[in-house]
């Protein structure tokens, strides 16, 4: 695939103790895009791992959660006059090539935001079966909470325009931020679309990422979000 270099595209990588994989993830992204690493108060040497890279490094002095880290990244990217903003997980499960594909979809459909999906035809993933079931259930719960039925409600890979990013202000610090983003897209009548993406579940990302049991915690956060919005 033809890869363009465009530094007005900012990739936000929220991370928490990702010392083993962060440099590789960031190095790949830096070939084409500007990268903002938002370190959510990691206790490991994440920063040392990144020294020498042309990366914007922001560190929370206390752990707030992934939603808060993404919001910090968005605010910084907007200050840096980003044209497009991408959210990308640090644990290496996303495929960099998908960003370009999603940007094309965004422009072609004239949409404000593109959500990555593991369930659309064209996406490849080696997802464990139990994970698949949990995500299918999560999809409907998210629909109830946000009013938007996406094929994959909890995918960390998203591409949005500057205008969209200005309207999406995440106040859900923890895992319910996915539903909040969808909710805000709906409330602001923003045009959205989905794009199949590749996810690789490595031993590492399986260990680090959201575990099935955490879904209960996400559900709890979601209920509280609906109650106290």
């Amino acid at each position, binding site marked *: 695939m033809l890869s363009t270099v465009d530094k007005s595209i900012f990739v936000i990588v929220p991370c928490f103790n990702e010392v083993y994989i962060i440099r590789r993830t960031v190095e790949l992204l830096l070939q084409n895009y500007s990268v903002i690493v*938002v370190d959510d108060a990691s206790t490991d040497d994440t*920063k040392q791992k*990144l*020294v*020498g*890279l*042309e*990366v*914007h*490094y*922001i*560190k*929370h*002095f*206390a752990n*707030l959660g992934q939603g*808060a880290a993404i*919001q*910090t990244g968005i*605010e*910084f990217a907007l*200050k*840096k006059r980003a044209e497009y903003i991408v959210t990308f997980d640090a644990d290496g499960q996303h495929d960099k090539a998908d960003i370009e594909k999603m940007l094309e979809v965004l422009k072609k459909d004239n949409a404000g935001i593109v959500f990555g999906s593991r369930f659309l035809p064209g996406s490849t993933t080696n997802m464990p079966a139990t994970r698949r079931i949990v995500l299918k259930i999560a999809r409907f719960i998210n629909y109830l909470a946000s009013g938007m039925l996406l094929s994959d409600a909890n995918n960390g890979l998203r591409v949005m325009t500057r205008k969209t990013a200005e309207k999406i202000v995440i*106040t859900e*610090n923890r895992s319910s931020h996915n539903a909040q983003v969808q909710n805000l897209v709906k409330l602001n009548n923003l045009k959205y679309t989905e794009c199949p993406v590749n996810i690789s579940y490595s031993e590492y990302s399986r260990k680090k990422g959201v575990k099935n049991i955490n879904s209960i915690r996400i559900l709890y956060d979601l209920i*509280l979000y609906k*109650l*106290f919005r």
Partner: protein
Amino acid sequence: MVPIQIVLISAVVFICFYMYLRLRSNLLDAALIFLFCAGAIFFILFPNTTTEIAQWLGVKRGINLVFYVTIFFLFFLILKLYARIRRLEKKFTDMVREKSLDKAEDLSKENHDTYGGAV
């Protein structure tokens, strides 16, 4: 008067006095505390009135009514507290974010200069 009434009344008076000392700035608060205190003492001295009110409402015993009311009151308190925690968390988040944005770094620079306040 039976001993438990004396114990309960002293407890209520003590708590109300303590609350008044903590929150005395506000006249409305003081009035509410006084009302609560007077109400509590009244029901301690005349426990059968709760049964009368309960039966008027269709509940068998006064103690059951007190139980129902207390559950709803506590639930309301939890919601209020939770809303307060959310507000505090928001303030804290804003603080952490502001500070971290001020200290954003470009790690390619040799001595990792911070951008300073304005970016």
